[in-house]
Protein backbone atom coordinates (compact mmCIF):
# COMPACT_ATOMS: atom_id res chain seq x y z
CA UNK A 1 0.00 0.00 0.00
CA UNK A 2 2.84 2.36 0.75
CA UNK A 3 5.13 1.55 -2.08
CA UNK A 4 6.43 -1.45 -3.93
CA UNK A 5 9.48 -2.72 -5.69
CA UNK A 6 7.65 -3.89 -8.77
CA UNK A 7 8.88 -2.45 -11.98
CA UNK A 8 12.26 -1.59 -10.56
CA UNK A 9 14.70 -3.94 -12.20
CA UNK A 10 18.39 -3.54 -11.88
CA UNK A 11 20.45 -3.91 -14.98
CA UNK A 12 23.89 -3.68 -13.46
CA UNK A 13 25.43 -5.21 -10.37
CA UNK A 14 26.33 -1.71 -9.33
CA UNK A 15 22.70 -0.74 -9.12
CA UNK A 16 21.90 -3.96 -7.30
CA UNK A 17 24.51 -3.28 -4.65
CA UNK A 18 23.45 0.28 -3.98
CA UNK A 19 22.65 1.22 -0.42
CA UNK A 20 19.03 1.98 -1.11
CA UNK A 21 18.01 0.05 -4.19
CA UNK A 22 14.35 0.94 -3.97
CA UNK A 23 13.74 4.39 -5.36
CA UNK A 24 11.07 5.27 -2.86
CA UNK A 25 13.48 4.43 -0.04
CA UNK A 26 15.83 6.99 -1.49
CA UNK A 27 13.12 9.61 -1.66
CA UNK A 28 12.11 8.90 1.92
CA UNK A 29 15.67 9.19 3.12
CA UNK A 30 16.19 12.30 1.06
CA UNK A 31 13.12 13.87 2.57
CA UNK A 32 14.22 13.04 6.08
CA UNK A 33 17.68 14.44 5.47
CA UNK A 34 16.23 17.57 3.90
CA UNK A 35 14.06 18.25 6.92
CA UNK A 36 16.84 17.37 9.31
CA UNK A 37 19.37 19.68 7.74
CA UNK A 38 17.31 22.57 6.49
CA UNK A 39 14.15 22.77 8.53
CA UNK A 40 14.90 21.64 12.07
CA UNK A 41 17.74 24.07 12.79
CA UNK A 42 15.35 26.95 12.33
CA UNK A 43 12.66 25.65 14.65
CA UNK A 44 14.72 23.90 17.28
CA UNK A 45 14.81 25.11 20.87
CA UNK A 46 16.75 24.23 23.98
CA UNK A 47 14.37 21.59 25.25
CA UNK A 48 14.09 19.74 21.97
CA UNK A 49 17.82 19.76 21.46
CA UNK A 50 18.85 18.67 24.92
CA UNK A 51 16.05 16.33 25.80
CA UNK A 52 15.41 14.65 22.48
CA UNK A 53 17.45 15.29 19.39
CA UNK A 54 20.99 15.43 20.74
CA UNK A 55 20.72 12.29 22.89
CA UNK A 56 18.96 10.49 20.04
CA UNK A 57 21.65 11.33 17.51
CA UNK A 58 24.58 10.68 19.79
CA UNK A 59 23.28 7.44 21.20
CA UNK A 60 22.47 6.29 17.67
CA UNK A 61 26.12 6.71 16.79
CA UNK A 62 27.24 4.89 19.93
CA UNK A 63 24.71 2.14 19.33
CA UNK A 64 26.01 1.83 15.78
CA UNK A 65 29.50 1.41 17.19
CA UNK A 66 28.46 -1.28 19.63
CA UNK A 67 26.36 -2.97 16.98
CA UNK A 68 29.43 -3.30 14.77
CA UNK A 69 31.15 -5.22 17.53
CA UNK A 70 28.22 -7.21 18.89
CA UNK A 71 25.73 -7.44 16.05
CA UNK A 72 28.06 -7.75 13.07
CA UNK A 73 31.14 -9.34 14.56
CA UNK A 74 29.51 -11.34 17.31
CA UNK A 75 31.74 -10.25 20.17
CA UNK A 76 30.24 -9.10 23.43
CA UNK A 77 31.28 -5.96 25.25
CA UNK A 78 30.11 -4.45 28.50
CA UNK A 79 32.77 -1.77 28.41
CA UNK A 80 30.87 0.80 26.37
CA UNK A 81 30.75 3.32 29.20
CA UNK A 82 34.50 3.12 29.65
CA UNK A 83 35.19 3.78 25.99
CA UNK A 84 32.81 6.71 26.00
CA UNK A 85 34.84 8.10 28.88
CA UNK A 86 38.05 7.69 26.90
CA UNK A 87 36.54 9.79 24.14
CA UNK A 88 35.29 12.45 26.53
CA UNK A 89 38.39 12.80 28.67
CA UNK A 90 40.62 12.42 25.65
CA UNK A 91 38.92 15.36 23.99
CA UNK A 92 39.22 17.35 27.22
CA UNK A 93 42.96 16.81 27.45
CA UNK A 94 43.42 17.70 23.81
CA UNK A 95 41.40 20.87 24.07
CA UNK A 96 43.07 22.08 27.24
CA UNK A 97 46.58 21.16 26.12
CA UNK A 98 46.24 22.48 22.57
CA UNK A 99 43.61 25.24 22.53
CA UNK A 100 44.34 25.97 18.88
CA UNK A 101 43.11 22.62 17.68
CA UNK A 102 39.99 22.53 15.57
CA UNK A 103 37.12 20.82 17.39
CA UNK A 104 36.44 18.47 14.52
CA UNK A 105 39.99 17.22 14.68
CA UNK A 106 39.72 16.90 18.46
CA UNK A 107 36.64 14.75 18.23
CA UNK A 108 38.10 12.46 15.61
CA UNK A 109 41.34 12.15 17.54
CA UNK A 110 39.37 11.26 20.66
CA UNK A 111 37.81 8.48 18.67
CA UNK A 112 41.31 7.39 17.82
CA UNK A 113 42.28 7.19 21.49
CA UNK A 114 39.21 5.10 22.19
CA UNK A 115 40.06 2.84 19.26
CA UNK A 116 43.53 2.21 20.66
CA UNK A 117 42.16 1.38 24.10
CA UNK A 118 39.50 -0.76 22.49
CA UNK A 119 42.10 -2.83 20.69
CA UNK A 120 43.98 -3.30 23.94
CA UNK A 121 40.99 -4.58 25.84
CA UNK A 122 39.88 -6.55 22.82
CA UNK A 123 42.98 -8.69 22.83
CA UNK A 124 41.40 -11.27 25.16
CA UNK A 125 38.77 -11.92 22.49
CA UNK A 126 41.35 -13.95 20.65
CA UNK A 127 41.28 -16.61 23.30
CA UNK A 128 37.89 -16.32 24.95
CA UNK A 129 34.29 -15.86 23.93
CA UNK A 130 30.82 -15.30 25.23
CA UNK A 131 30.45 -14.17 28.77
CA UNK A 132 34.12 -14.79 29.52
CA UNK A 133 34.76 -11.98 27.09
CA UNK A 134 32.01 -10.01 28.79
CA UNK A 135 33.96 -10.20 32.04
CA UNK A 136 37.12 -9.01 30.32
CA UNK A 137 35.27 -5.98 28.98
CA UNK A 138 33.87 -5.39 32.46
CA UNK A 139 37.47 -5.10 33.62
CA UNK A 140 37.89 -2.37 31.04
CA UNK A 141 34.74 -0.64 32.23
CA UNK A 142 35.59 -0.54 35.92
CA UNK A 143 39.26 0.18 35.47
CA UNK A 144 38.75 3.04 33.03
CA UNK A 145 36.10 4.75 35.14
CA UNK A 146 38.30 4.45 38.22
CA UNK A 147 41.20 5.88 36.26
CA UNK A 148 39.31 8.92 35.01
CA UNK A 149 37.99 9.51 38.49
CA UNK A 150 41.22 9.13 40.44
CA UNK A 151 44.15 9.89 38.18
CA UNK A 152 44.39 13.67 38.34
CA UNK A 153 46.24 14.15 35.10
CA UNK A 154 43.06 13.46 33.16
CA UNK A 155 41.20 16.37 34.65
CA UNK A 156 44.19 18.66 35.02
CA UNK A 157 44.31 18.14 38.77
CA UNK A 158 41.20 20.17 39.40
CA UNK A 159 37.78 18.67 39.98
CA UNK A 160 37.19 15.26 38.48
CA UNK A 161 34.18 16.80 36.80
CA UNK A 162 35.31 18.27 33.52
CA UNK A 163 33.72 21.11 31.61
CA UNK A 164 33.85 21.65 27.89
CA UNK A 165 35.70 24.82 26.85
CA UNK A 166 34.06 26.93 24.13
CA UNK A 167 35.10 26.18 20.58
CA UNK A 168 33.96 27.41 17.22
CA UNK A 169 33.38 25.99 13.79
CA UNK A 170 33.32 28.52 10.94
CA UNK A 171 33.02 31.25 13.52
CA UNK A 172 29.96 29.74 15.19
CA UNK A 173 30.17 28.61 18.80
CA UNK A 174 29.39 24.92 19.12
CA UNK A 175 30.66 24.06 22.59
CA UNK A 176 30.46 25.84 25.90
CA UNK A 177 27.51 27.39 27.65
CA UNK A 178 26.81 30.06 25.05
CA UNK A 179 26.52 27.77 22.05
CA UNK A 180 23.10 27.79 20.45
CA UNK A 181 21.02 24.61 20.29
CA UNK A 182 20.79 24.92 16.54
CA UNK A 183 24.55 25.04 16.15
CA UNK A 184 25.10 22.11 18.44
CA UNK A 185 22.37 20.14 16.73
CA UNK A 186 23.67 20.83 13.24
CA UNK A 187 27.25 20.01 14.13
CA UNK A 188 26.25 16.75 15.77
CA UNK A 189 24.00 15.89 12.87
CA UNK A 190 26.84 16.34 10.39
CA UNK A 191 29.18 14.11 12.33
CA UNK A 192 26.57 11.44 12.87
CA UNK A 193 25.54 11.53 9.21
CA UNK A 194 29.10 11.21 7.89
CA UNK A 195 30.05 8.36 10.17
CA UNK A 196 26.80 6.52 9.60
CA UNK A 197 27.49 6.65 5.88
CA UNK A 198 30.99 5.28 6.48
CA UNK A 199 29.60 2.49 8.64
CA UNK A 200 27.10 1.53 5.98
CA UNK A 201 29.89 1.34 3.43
CA UNK A 202 31.97 -0.83 5.68
CA UNK A 203 29.28 -3.36 6.47
CA UNK A 204 28.25 -3.99 2.90
CA UNK A 205 31.71 -4.77 1.62
CA UNK A 206 34.64 -7.00 2.34
CA UNK A 207 35.14 -5.69 5.86
CA UNK A 208 31.57 -6.29 6.96
CA UNK A 209 31.49 -9.75 5.45
CA UNK A 210 34.66 -10.64 7.30
CA UNK A 211 33.08 -9.56 10.57
CA UNK A 212 29.90 -11.51 9.93
CA UNK A 213 31.85 -14.59 8.93
CA UNK A 214 33.72 -14.50 12.23
CA UNK A 215 30.42 -14.04 14.01
CA UNK A 216 28.69 -16.95 12.33
CA UNK A 217 31.48 -19.52 12.30
CA UNK A 218 34.97 -18.33 12.97
CA UNK A 219 36.51 -21.72 12.26
CA UNK A 220 35.08 -21.85 8.76
CA UNK A 221 36.10 -18.25 8.25
CA UNK A 222 39.68 -19.09 9.07
CA UNK A 223 39.70 -21.86 6.52
CA UNK A 224 38.62 -19.34 3.89
CA UNK A 225 41.67 -17.25 4.62
CA UNK A 226 39.99 -14.74 6.90
CA UNK A 227 42.25 -13.85 9.79
CA UNK A 228 40.31 -14.04 13.08
CA UNK A 229 42.89 -11.99 14.97
CA UNK A 230 42.95 -9.03 12.64
CA UNK A 231 39.23 -9.13 11.98
CA UNK A 232 38.21 -9.13 15.64
CA UNK A 233 40.68 -6.43 16.57
CA UNK A 234 39.49 -4.32 13.66
CA UNK A 235 35.94 -4.70 14.95
CA UNK A 236 37.04 -3.60 18.41
CA UNK A 237 38.94 -0.69 16.94
CA UNK A 238 36.14 0.61 14.72
CA UNK A 239 33.51 0.00 17.36
CA UNK A 240 35.49 1.80 20.06
CA UNK A 241 36.25 4.62 17.64
CA UNK A 242 32.56 5.26 17.16
CA UNK A 243 31.82 4.90 20.85
CA UNK A 244 34.69 7.25 21.70
CA UNK A 245 33.40 9.88 19.31
CA UNK A 246 30.01 9.45 20.93
CA UNK A 247 31.55 10.05 24.33
CA UNK A 248 33.30 13.17 23.09
CA UNK A 249 30.02 14.41 21.62
CA UNK A 250 28.15 13.72 24.85
CA UNK A 251 30.71 15.74 26.75
CA UNK A 252 31.19 18.64 24.37
CA UNK A 253 27.96 18.94 22.49
CA UNK A 254 25.29 17.74 24.83
CA UNK A 255 25.97 17.71 28.55
CA UNK A 256 28.71 20.33 28.65
CA UNK A 257 30.25 18.85 31.75
CA UNK A 258 30.60 15.29 32.95
CA UNK A 259 31.97 13.24 35.78
CA UNK A 260 33.22 9.77 34.96
CA UNK A 261 31.41 7.81 37.63
CA UNK A 262 28.07 9.41 36.83
CA UNK A 263 28.04 9.85 33.10
CA UNK A 264 29.90 6.76 31.92
CA UNK A 265 29.24 4.01 34.45
CA UNK A 266 28.15 0.43 33.84
CA UNK A 267 24.54 1.53 33.45
CA UNK A 268 25.56 3.28 30.25
CA UNK A 269 27.01 0.02 28.94
CA UNK A 270 23.72 -1.71 29.63
CA UNK A 271 21.79 1.17 28.11
CA UNK A 272 23.54 0.90 24.76
CA UNK A 273 23.42 -2.90 24.79
CA UNK A 274 19.69 -2.76 25.37
CA UNK A 275 19.35 -0.24 22.55
CA UNK A 276 20.88 -2.59 20.01
CA UNK A 277 18.98 -5.62 21.27
CA UNK A 278 15.68 -3.81 20.99
CA UNK A 279 16.60 -2.05 17.79
CA UNK A 280 18.09 -5.04 16.08
CA UNK A 281 21.49 -6.66 16.16
CA UNK A 282 23.46 -6.40 12.96
CA UNK A 283 21.43 -3.56 11.52
CA UNK A 284 22.25 0.10 10.96
CA UNK A 285 18.59 1.07 11.02
CA UNK A 286 18.21 -0.99 14.16
CA UNK A 287 20.87 1.05 15.93
CA UNK A 288 18.89 4.22 15.25
CA UNK A 289 15.55 2.70 16.19
CA UNK A 290 16.90 1.22 19.39
CA UNK A 291 18.63 4.43 20.41
CA UNK A 292 15.46 6.37 19.69
CA UNK A 293 13.52 3.98 21.85
CA UNK A 294 15.90 4.04 24.80
CA UNK A 295 16.42 7.79 24.66
CA UNK A 296 12.77 8.70 24.18
CA UNK A 297 11.12 6.24 26.49
CA UNK A 298 12.05 8.01 29.74
CA UNK A 299 10.76 11.25 28.24
CA UNK A 300 7.48 9.68 27.19
CA UNK A 301 7.08 7.87 30.49
CA UNK A 302 7.70 11.08 32.34
CA UNK A 303 5.11 12.91 30.30
CA UNK A 304 2.60 10.14 30.74
CA UNK A 305 3.10 9.09 34.31
CA UNK A 306 4.49 12.10 36.10
CA UNK A 307 2.69 14.86 34.26
CA UNK A 308 -0.29 12.78 33.22
CA UNK A 309 -1.03 10.53 36.19
CA UNK A 310 0.87 12.34 38.92
CA UNK A 311 3.11 9.41 39.64
CA UNK A 312 6.30 10.37 41.46
CA UNK A 313 9.44 10.65 39.40
CA UNK A 314 11.10 7.93 41.41
CA UNK A 315 8.28 5.52 40.70
CA UNK A 316 8.39 6.41 37.04
CA UNK A 317 12.03 5.34 37.05
CA UNK A 318 11.07 2.00 38.55
CA UNK A 319 8.42 1.49 35.92
CA UNK A 320 11.02 2.31 33.30
CA UNK A 321 13.27 -0.42 34.65
CA UNK A 322 10.49 -2.97 34.57
CA UNK A 323 9.46 -1.92 31.09
CA UNK A 324 12.95 -2.02 29.63
CA UNK A 325 13.76 -5.35 31.24
CA UNK A 326 10.54 -6.92 30.05
CA UNK A 327 11.04 -5.61 26.55
CA UNK A 328 14.53 -7.06 26.43
CA UNK A 329 13.18 -10.45 27.35
CA UNK A 330 10.28 -10.04 24.95
CA UNK A 331 12.48 -9.10 22.01
CA UNK A 332 14.94 -11.86 22.70
CA UNK A 333 12.12 -14.38 22.68
CA UNK A 334 9.93 -13.10 19.92
CA UNK A 335 12.12 -11.07 17.61
CA UNK A 336 15.86 -11.29 18.12
CA UNK A 337 16.34 -9.01 15.18
CA UNK A 338 14.50 -6.31 16.97
CA UNK A 339 12.59 -3.35 15.73
CA UNK A 340 14.49 -3.32 12.46
CA UNK A 341 13.04 -6.69 11.52
CA UNK A 342 9.60 -5.65 12.73
CA UNK A 343 9.92 -2.60 10.49
CA UNK A 344 10.90 -4.82 7.57
CA UNK A 345 8.02 -7.18 8.18
CA UNK A 346 5.59 -4.29 8.51
CA UNK A 347 6.75 -2.93 5.18
CA UNK A 348 6.18 -6.32 3.63
CA UNK A 349 2.73 -6.63 5.11
CA UNK A 350 1.85 -3.12 4.02
CA UNK A 351 2.68 -4.03 0.46
CA UNK A 352 -0.27 -6.32 0.39
CA UNK A 353 -2.58 -4.46 2.76
CA UNK A 354 -5.53 -4.62 2.89
CA UNK A 355 -5.29 -8.12 1.42
CA UNK A 356 -3.99 -10.66 3.95
CA UNK A 357 -2.23 -12.74 1.35
Amino acid at each position, binding site marked *: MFYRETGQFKSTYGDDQALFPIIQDRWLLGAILLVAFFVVPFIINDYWANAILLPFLIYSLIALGLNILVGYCGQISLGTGGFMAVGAYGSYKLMTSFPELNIVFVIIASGGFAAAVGVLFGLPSLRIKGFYLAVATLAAQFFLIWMFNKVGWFYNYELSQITSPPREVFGVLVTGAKASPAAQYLFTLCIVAVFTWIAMNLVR*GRVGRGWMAIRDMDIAAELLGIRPLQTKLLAFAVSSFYIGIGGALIFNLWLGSVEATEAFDILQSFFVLFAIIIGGLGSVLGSFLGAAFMALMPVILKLLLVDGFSVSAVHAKHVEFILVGSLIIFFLIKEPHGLARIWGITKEKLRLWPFPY
Partner: protein
Amino acid sequence: MDSTQTQTQSGAEDGSFVTPDGRTIGAPILEVKDIIVRFGGVTAIDGVSFDVRKGEIRAIIGPNGAGKSSMLNVINGFYKPNEGTINFKGEILPAMEPYLAASNGIARTFQNIALFKGMSTLDNLMTGRMLKMKTGFFSHCIYFGAAQKEELEHRERVEHVIDFLEINDIRRTPVGRLPYGLQKRVELGRALAMEPDILLLDEPMAGMNVEEKEDMSRFVIEVNEEFGTTVLLIEHDMGVVMDLSDRVVVLDYGRKIADGSPDEVRSNQAVIDAYLGVSHD
Protein backbone atom coordinates in the same frame (compact mmCIF):
# COMPACT_ATOMS: atom_id res chain seq x y z
CA MET B 1 30.32 -42.45 -17.10
CA ASP B 2 33.54 -44.33 -17.03
CA SER B 3 36.29 -41.96 -16.15
CA THR B 4 39.28 -44.00 -15.15
CA GLN B 5 41.21 -47.14 -15.94
CA THR B 6 44.40 -47.55 -17.76
CA GLN B 7 47.22 -45.37 -16.72
CA THR B 8 49.33 -46.90 -19.38
CA GLN B 9 48.96 -44.06 -21.82
CA SER B 10 52.11 -42.42 -22.94
CA GLY B 11 53.24 -40.33 -20.05
CA ALA B 12 55.57 -37.37 -19.75
CA GLU B 13 58.52 -37.57 -17.35
CA ASP B 14 56.47 -36.04 -14.54
CA GLY B 15 54.03 -38.88 -14.79
CA SER B 16 51.22 -36.90 -16.37
CA PHE B 17 48.98 -38.51 -18.88
CA VAL B 18 45.71 -38.14 -20.71
CA THR B 19 42.68 -40.19 -19.75
CA PRO B 20 40.44 -41.87 -22.30
CA ASP B 21 37.91 -39.06 -22.01
CA GLY B 22 40.44 -36.37 -22.72
CA ARG B 23 41.33 -34.97 -19.29
CA THR B 24 44.92 -34.37 -18.36
CA ILE B 25 46.04 -35.82 -15.09
CA GLY B 26 49.37 -34.49 -14.00
CA ALA B 27 52.02 -35.13 -11.44
CA PRO B 28 51.05 -35.30 -7.78
CA ILE B 29 50.33 -31.87 -6.33
CA LEU B 30 49.59 -33.15 -2.84
CA GLU B 31 51.30 -35.90 -0.95
CA VAL B 32 50.85 -36.89 2.66
CA LYS B 33 53.53 -39.11 4.16
CA ASP B 34 53.37 -41.23 7.30
CA ILE B 35 50.77 -39.03 8.92
CA ILE B 36 50.01 -39.91 12.53
CA VAL B 37 47.28 -38.08 14.44
CA ARG B 38 46.54 -38.81 18.09
CA PHE B 39 43.87 -37.40 20.39
CA GLY B 40 44.59 -38.25 23.97
CA GLY B 41 44.62 -42.03 23.96
CA VAL B 42 43.04 -42.50 20.55
CA THR B 43 45.08 -42.78 17.37
CA ALA B 44 42.84 -41.41 14.64
CA ILE B 45 45.34 -41.76 11.81
CA ASP B 46 48.10 -44.32 12.07
CA GLY B 47 50.81 -43.82 9.48
CA VAL B 48 48.88 -43.02 6.31
CA SER B 49 50.56 -42.02 3.05
CA PHE B 50 49.06 -41.31 -0.33
CA ASP B 51 49.24 -38.76 -3.08
CA VAL B 52 46.78 -36.83 -5.20
CA ARG B 53 47.53 -36.03 -8.81
CA LYS B 54 46.75 -32.74 -10.42
CA GLY B 55 43.42 -32.83 -12.22
CA GLU B 56 42.24 -36.13 -10.88
CA ILE B 57 39.22 -36.99 -8.80
CA ARG B 58 40.39 -38.98 -5.80
CA ALA B 59 38.09 -40.62 -3.31
CA ILE B 60 38.74 -41.55 0.31
CA ILE B 61 36.45 -44.27 1.53
CA GLY B 62 36.24 -46.47 4.56
CA PRO B 63 33.94 -47.51 7.39
CA ASN B 64 32.78 -44.94 9.94
CA GLY B 65 35.49 -43.73 12.21
CA ALA B 66 38.27 -44.71 9.84
CA GLY B 67 39.83 -41.27 10.05
CA LYS B 68 38.67 -39.85 6.73
CA SER B 69 37.47 -36.48 7.99
CA SER B 70 40.53 -36.22 10.18
CA MET B 71 42.66 -36.68 7.10
CA LEU B 72 40.96 -33.75 5.39
CA ASN B 73 41.37 -31.70 8.55
CA VAL B 74 45.09 -32.36 8.44
CA ILE B 75 45.35 -31.29 4.81
CA ASN B 76 43.32 -28.20 5.61
CA GLY B 77 45.51 -27.21 8.52
CA PHE B 78 42.77 -27.65 11.06
CA TYR B 79 44.59 -30.52 12.74
CA LYS B 80 48.33 -30.66 13.18
CA PRO B 81 49.64 -34.19 12.78
CA ASN B 82 51.79 -35.60 15.54
CA GLU B 83 54.12 -37.07 12.93
CA GLY B 84 54.48 -37.07 9.19
CA THR B 85 54.76 -34.47 6.47
CA ILE B 86 52.59 -32.79 3.90
CA ASN B 87 54.00 -32.06 0.50
CA PHE B 88 51.90 -29.48 -1.31
CA LYS B 89 52.95 -27.90 -4.58
CA GLY B 90 56.53 -28.87 -3.96
CA GLU B 91 56.80 -27.53 -0.42
CA ILE B 92 57.33 -30.04 2.35
CA LEU B 93 55.70 -29.02 5.64
CA PRO B 94 55.36 -30.76 8.99
CA ALA B 95 51.88 -29.31 9.26
CA MET B 96 49.56 -27.06 7.35
CA GLU B 97 48.21 -23.73 8.62
CA PRO B 98 44.62 -22.78 7.77
CA TYR B 99 45.68 -19.48 6.24
CA LEU B 100 48.45 -21.12 4.25
CA ALA B 101 46.12 -23.80 2.98
CA ALA B 102 43.54 -21.25 1.89
CA SER B 103 46.00 -18.94 0.21
CA ASN B 104 47.63 -21.81 -1.60
CA GLY B 105 44.45 -22.95 -3.22
CA ILE B 106 42.95 -25.54 -0.89
CA ALA B 107 39.20 -25.20 -0.45
CA ARG B 108 36.86 -27.36 1.56
CA THR B 109 33.29 -28.30 2.30
CA PHE B 110 32.15 -29.90 5.52
CA GLN B 111 30.11 -32.87 6.54
CA ASN B 112 27.80 -30.80 8.71
CA ILE B 113 27.73 -27.67 6.57
CA ALA B 114 29.81 -24.74 7.72
CA LEU B 115 27.97 -21.91 6.01
CA PHE B 116 27.54 -18.48 7.54
CA LYS B 117 23.94 -18.79 8.58
CA GLY B 118 23.41 -15.08 9.16
CA MET B 119 24.32 -14.13 5.60
CA SER B 120 22.70 -14.55 2.22
CA THR B 121 23.82 -17.00 -0.45
CA LEU B 122 25.50 -14.23 -2.36
CA ASP B 123 27.38 -12.96 0.67
CA ASN B 124 28.48 -16.46 1.57
CA LEU B 125 29.92 -16.93 -1.89
CA MET B 126 31.56 -13.52 -1.73
CA THR B 127 33.39 -14.57 1.43
CA GLY B 128 35.06 -17.16 -0.76
CA ARG B 129 36.65 -14.24 -2.61
CA MET B 130 38.08 -12.68 0.56
CA LEU B 131 41.65 -13.74 -0.10
CA LYS B 132 41.56 -12.10 -3.48
CA MET B 133 40.18 -8.80 -2.28
CA LYS B 134 42.95 -6.40 -1.64
CA THR B 135 41.53 -2.92 -1.30
CA GLY B 136 42.30 -1.28 1.99
CA PHE B 137 40.13 -0.42 4.94
CA PHE B 138 39.97 3.28 4.23
CA SER B 139 38.94 2.66 0.64
CA HIS B 140 36.00 0.72 1.97
CA CYS B 141 35.07 3.57 4.26
CA ILE B 142 34.19 5.67 1.24
CA TYR B 143 33.32 2.74 -1.01
CA PHE B 144 33.18 4.77 -4.21
CA GLY B 145 36.30 4.30 -6.26
CA ALA B 146 38.65 1.42 -5.68
CA ALA B 147 36.50 -0.52 -3.27
CA GLN B 148 33.41 -0.41 -5.42
CA LYS B 149 35.36 -1.45 -8.49
CA GLU B 150 36.76 -4.47 -6.71
CA GLU B 151 33.40 -5.44 -5.26
CA LEU B 152 31.77 -5.40 -8.67
CA GLU B 153 34.61 -7.36 -10.24
CA HIS B 154 34.29 -10.11 -7.70
CA ARG B 155 30.54 -9.98 -7.89
CA GLU B 156 30.82 -10.87 -11.55
CA ARG B 157 33.04 -13.84 -10.82
CA VAL B 158 30.70 -15.05 -8.13
CA GLU B 159 27.78 -14.73 -10.52
CA HIS B 160 29.54 -17.20 -12.81
CA VAL B 161 29.58 -19.69 -9.97
CA ILE B 162 25.94 -18.93 -9.23
CA ASP B 163 25.01 -19.61 -12.84
CA PHE B 164 27.10 -22.76 -12.87
CA LEU B 165 25.41 -24.16 -9.79
CA GLU B 166 21.97 -22.89 -10.81
CA ILE B 167 21.30 -21.08 -7.56
CA ASN B 168 20.25 -17.76 -9.07
CA ASP B 169 16.86 -17.68 -7.38
CA ILE B 170 18.21 -17.97 -3.87
CA ARG B 171 20.87 -15.34 -4.22
CA ARG B 172 19.49 -13.10 -1.50
CA THR B 173 18.00 -15.75 0.76
CA PRO B 174 19.64 -16.11 4.16
CA VAL B 175 21.22 -19.53 3.92
CA GLY B 176 19.82 -20.58 7.26
CA ARG B 177 16.44 -20.77 5.57
CA LEU B 178 17.48 -22.99 2.69
CA PRO B 179 16.74 -26.70 2.57
CA TYR B 180 19.62 -29.04 3.29
CA GLY B 181 20.37 -29.97 -0.32
CA LEU B 182 20.61 -26.36 -1.41
CA GLN B 183 22.81 -25.48 1.54
CA LYS B 184 25.24 -28.14 0.45
CA ARG B 185 25.23 -26.66 -3.02
CA VAL B 186 25.86 -23.16 -1.69
CA GLU B 187 28.74 -24.50 0.35
CA LEU B 188 30.22 -25.99 -2.79
CA GLY B 189 29.73 -22.62 -4.43
CA ARG B 190 31.64 -20.89 -1.68
CA ALA B 191 34.52 -23.31 -2.11
CA LEU B 192 34.44 -22.83 -5.88
CA ALA B 193 34.46 -19.05 -5.48
CA MET B 194 37.94 -19.44 -4.05
CA GLU B 195 39.06 -20.74 -7.47
CA PRO B 196 40.94 -23.48 -5.69
CA ASP B 197 43.61 -25.78 -7.03
CA ILE B 198 42.35 -28.64 -4.94
CA LEU B 199 38.84 -29.11 -3.63
CA LEU B 200 38.30 -31.14 -0.47
CA LEU B 201 34.74 -32.43 -0.25
CA ASP B 202 33.61 -34.07 2.97
CA GLU B 203 30.63 -36.30 2.13
CA PRO B 204 29.11 -33.91 -0.40
CA MET B 205 26.23 -36.27 -1.13
CA ALA B 206 25.27 -37.04 2.46
CA GLY B 207 21.58 -36.77 3.11
CA MET B 208 20.63 -36.19 -0.49
CA ASN B 209 18.02 -37.93 -2.58
CA VAL B 210 18.78 -39.49 -5.96
CA GLU B 211 18.14 -36.35 -7.99
CA GLU B 212 20.23 -34.17 -5.73
CA LYS B 213 23.05 -36.68 -5.90
CA GLU B 214 22.95 -36.66 -9.66
CA ASP B 215 23.09 -32.89 -9.70
CA MET B 216 26.00 -32.82 -7.27
CA SER B 217 27.90 -35.47 -9.22
CA ARG B 218 27.37 -33.47 -12.38
CA PHE B 219 28.76 -30.36 -10.72
CA VAL B 220 31.82 -32.17 -9.42
CA ILE B 221 32.60 -33.64 -12.84
CA GLU B 222 32.07 -30.31 -14.58
CA VAL B 223 34.29 -28.49 -12.13
CA ASN B 224 36.98 -31.05 -12.72
CA GLU B 225 36.62 -31.05 -16.50
CA GLU B 226 36.14 -27.36 -17.16
CA PHE B 227 38.51 -25.83 -14.64
CA GLY B 228 40.89 -28.73 -14.15
CA THR B 229 40.30 -28.56 -10.40
CA THR B 230 41.71 -31.49 -8.46
CA VAL B 231 39.10 -33.09 -6.23
CA LEU B 232 39.62 -35.13 -3.10
CA LEU B 233 36.34 -36.38 -1.70
CA ILE B 234 35.07 -38.51 1.10
CA GLU B 235 32.02 -40.47 0.18
CA HIS B 236 29.99 -43.42 1.39
CA ASP B 237 27.89 -44.05 -1.68
CA MET B 238 29.83 -46.72 -3.58
CA GLY B 239 28.03 -46.06 -6.80
CA VAL B 240 29.09 -42.43 -6.75
CA VAL B 241 32.66 -43.36 -5.90
CA MET B 242 32.93 -45.84 -8.70
CA ASP B 243 31.45 -43.47 -11.25
CA LEU B 244 33.31 -40.33 -10.32
CA SER B 245 36.77 -41.18 -9.15
CA ASP B 246 40.00 -41.85 -10.96
CA ARG B 247 41.66 -43.41 -7.93
CA VAL B 248 40.52 -44.46 -4.50
CA VAL B 249 42.19 -44.64 -1.08
CA VAL B 250 40.63 -46.94 1.47
CA LEU B 251 41.09 -46.27 5.20
CA ASP B 252 40.15 -48.53 8.07
CA TYR B 253 40.89 -47.83 11.73
CA GLY B 254 43.24 -45.05 10.71
CA ARG B 255 45.31 -47.16 8.33
CA LYS B 256 45.42 -47.34 4.57
CA ILE B 257 44.32 -50.75 3.39
CA ALA B 258 44.06 -50.16 -0.34
CA ASP B 259 45.01 -47.61 -2.95
CA GLY B 260 44.26 -47.83 -6.65
CA SER B 261 41.62 -47.55 -9.32
CA PRO B 262 38.00 -48.13 -8.35
CA ASP B 263 37.94 -51.56 -9.95
CA GLU B 264 41.13 -52.65 -8.21
CA VAL B 265 39.81 -51.46 -4.88
CA ARG B 266 36.41 -53.01 -5.35
CA SER B 267 37.83 -56.44 -5.76
CA ASN B 268 40.39 -56.08 -2.97
CA GLN B 269 39.80 -58.70 -0.27
CA ALA B 270 40.94 -56.50 2.59
CA VAL B 271 38.45 -53.85 1.53
CA ILE B 272 35.63 -56.34 1.28
CA ASP B 273 36.47 -57.64 4.73
CA ALA B 274 36.53 -54.17 6.20
CA TYR B 275 33.10 -53.43 4.87
CA LEU B 276 31.50 -56.72 5.75
CA GLY B 277 28.72 -56.09 8.16
CA VAL B 278 28.70 -52.40 7.35
CA SER B 279 25.72 -51.46 5.17
CA HIS B 280 26.30 -49.04 2.38
CA ASP B 281 23.81 -47.29 0.18
